């Protein structure tokens, strides 16, 4: 479903991603772990085309980012990259809900603006998605009236509304109070159980153990180790993985 090949990315002189290659099968849940600054977020942002890799290839469901982005340089052909992005759901650490729209409005927005679904239909589908993340009764609330956990669940519903082929999560629980982490993870577990293809950057090792099919450990811009969660967590091969796990477990 996702194929990343020899990805390299620099920010000025900083080599953020070094020859990163991995792939994710349909329905697979891959958890990315690693110290901060190791390139996890940048990798996610390269997958949805928010950052353009310097070299290498990203292919999501048969569509190459380079093709989609390459078309952008032709006048008026930005559409391809937009449609590429609309197939990839993204959930951010700090939610980034639209503060001037209600929860329902946030979820319906992509349907209305991008998919051109009629308002009544979009609202109905948005309402169903809110119910799915356990917020069926908060549709009229503005983001500022919701707790962090509720906001993040709305953000997940907003991404799901586009019926994305894959979902990317960039530390979705790191900005939450500890008691609110559970409700977001529950929603994510539900998604995984329904067969959503997911790439999750997280420090929630419990979630990784329980839900991930595979864990990738990144350090200094490269994937250092990968394997099933029980393998990586209980018998890390690489000394840097061991050092990292020792610190956080």
């Amino acid at each position, binding site marked *: 479903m996702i194929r990343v090949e020899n990805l390299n990315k620099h920010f000025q002189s900083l080599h953020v991603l070094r020859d990163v290659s991995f792939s994710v099968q349909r329905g697979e849940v891959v958890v990315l772990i690693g110290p901060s600054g190791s390139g996890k977020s940048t990798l996610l942002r390269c997958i949805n085309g*928010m950052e353009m890799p310097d070299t290498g290839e990203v292919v999501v469901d048969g569509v190459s980012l380079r093709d989609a982005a390459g078309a952008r340089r032709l006048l008026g052909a930005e559409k391809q990259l937009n449609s590429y992005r*609309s197939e990839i759901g993204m959930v951010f650490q700090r939610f980034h809900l639209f503060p001037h729209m209600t929860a329902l409005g946030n979820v319906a927005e*992509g349907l209305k603006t991008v998919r051109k679904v009629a308002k009544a239909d979009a609202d109905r589908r948005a309402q169903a998605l809110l119910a799915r993340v356990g917020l069926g009764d908060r549709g009229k609330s503005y983001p500022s009236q919701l707790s962090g956990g509720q906001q993040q669940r709305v*953000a997940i519903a907003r991404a799901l509304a586009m019926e994305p082929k894959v979902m990317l999560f960039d530390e979705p629980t790191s900005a939450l109070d500890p008691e609110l982490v559970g409700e977001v993870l529950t929603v994510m577990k539900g998604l995984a159980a329904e067969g959503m293809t997911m790439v999750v950057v997280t420090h929630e090792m419990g979630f990784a153990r329980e839900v991930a099919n595979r864990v990738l450990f990144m350090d200094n811009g490269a994937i250092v180790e990968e394997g099933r969660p029980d393998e990586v967590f209980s018998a890390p091969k690489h000394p840097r993985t061991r050092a990292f796990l020792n610190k956080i477990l």
Partner: protein
Amino acid sequence: MTRLLLLVFGGGLVEWQIVLKYFPVLAKGAVMTVELTALAILFGTALGLGIALAKISRNLVVARLAQLYTWLWRGTPLLLQLFVIYYGLPEVGLTLNPFQAAVLGLSLNAGAYVSEIIRGAIQSIERGQTEAARSLGMSYFQAMYRVILPQAFRRMLPPLGNEFIAMLKDSSLVATISMVDLMRTAQQMYAATFRPVEIFLATGVLYLFLTTLFTITFGKLERNLSAYD
């Protein structure tokens, strides 16, 4: 203070009949001032939005041109700009009547200031908002129109209110290119009556009335738009 009040209201300094007599004529001038200001706000804001978007464009040529525009229009006096448009353009074959010249001059000038206000407001919106919108597949303009501008609009209201009030008062400069606005009417009435106190008092009251309307309107707008937080 008491003496001043006494002088104004009871001491014969102000002949209220004269104020009342010329008030309707001045009010007509005020209507023209409102008309000019309204058009300048309309065109100036549209222009300002365009220039603001150009300033934050990734195309450096476009961005530089937009900066050049603001540099030029903000760096020279409005009075000079009006003179160039009204007296200068005919030299190159473009003759505008006072009304056209006034609207053009005020709008072009307003565009420079408004563009800075809009640019600042847009750039004050957290980067994550754009990223969230784009990650849904929105185009740059969809993200701008649906997500960024509605939020930026609220932040630009207070400085925009200031700017519009300044525009209303600065519009009095069009009196110098023989546009019969409130200020010019006041000058004409003064020349006809030689009653500076009555005429200019009434004129001041009218300007104050108009700027107060702006203040109240913008106050209301700000309150209405703060509904979501």
